[in-house]
């Protein structure tokens, strides 16, 4: 059986204050998602300072996947980038809160409020 693939689409949206790079994740985020999470992040130029994570399409996220998100946040922190998040299902919002990730990225109900939070 093959693990369900993590799909990620990188987009740039224009908002007040400049461009925002959006990573739209779908499928599963697990230990098999290294390339999709960290590899995609590494493709974002360091000059980009505003990154939006869209988890709307994520069905399954385990602790190994959360660890990859934390690694991405560590790298972003070093590069002076800000990360906002939206689209997490309520259960995963609870899990993110339990492990403390919400100290470093806010969880927003939708894309509009997440983008507005950069300003």
């Amino acid at each position, binding site marked *: *059986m*093959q*693990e*369900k693939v993590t799909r990620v689409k990188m987009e740039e949206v224009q908002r007040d204050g400049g461009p925002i790079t959006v990573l739209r994740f779908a499928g599963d985020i*697990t*230990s*098999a998602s290294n390339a999709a999470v960290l590899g995609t992040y590494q493709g974002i130029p360091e000059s980009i300072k505003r990154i939006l994570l869209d988890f709307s399409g994520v069905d*399954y996220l*385990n*602790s*190994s996947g*959360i*660890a*990859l998100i*934390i*690694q991405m*946040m*560590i790298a972003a*922190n070093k590069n002076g980038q800000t990360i906002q998040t939206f689209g997490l*299902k*309520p*259960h995963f919002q609870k*899990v993110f809160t*339990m*492990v*403390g*990730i919400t*100290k*470093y990225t806010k969880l927003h109900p939708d894309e509009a409020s997440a983008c507005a939070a950069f300003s």
Partner: protein
Amino acid sequence: MDEHRSSIELRLPSRLGFEKVAMNTAASVARLMGFADDRVEDLKTAIAEACINAMEHGNKLDETLSVGVILSMKSDSLEVKVLDTGTGPQGHATAPDIDKKMHEEEEPRGMGMFLIESLVDEVEWVSSPPTGSYARMVIRLQAER
């Protein structure tokens, strides 16, 4: 539900991804028992993490070794045992320190046991060498927390 037919057993290969078989089976059972959606989600994460621990740490990802999962239905709770051939976890779950993780003073991984303990009503890790070890979790229809 008939107490005499209240047990379901699975044997999974120690291959990451197969934890979803246990997770989805347990979710189906929990829904049949009348668990609320948020409790089903708690159970899914707890079982998935227990199976991943069993595959990675208990059976060292040796695909010739199985992870056993036993779901036992009671009138007011579901007990889940996840069995492997290892010696069981050393120590106990500690809450992740996100500041230490962000400052690379703590590994980004290692949150599985913490999540399990946080999401179910009862949990214990039992080591019974040489046969192996198991995690035993109980989730109640009416949460105590």
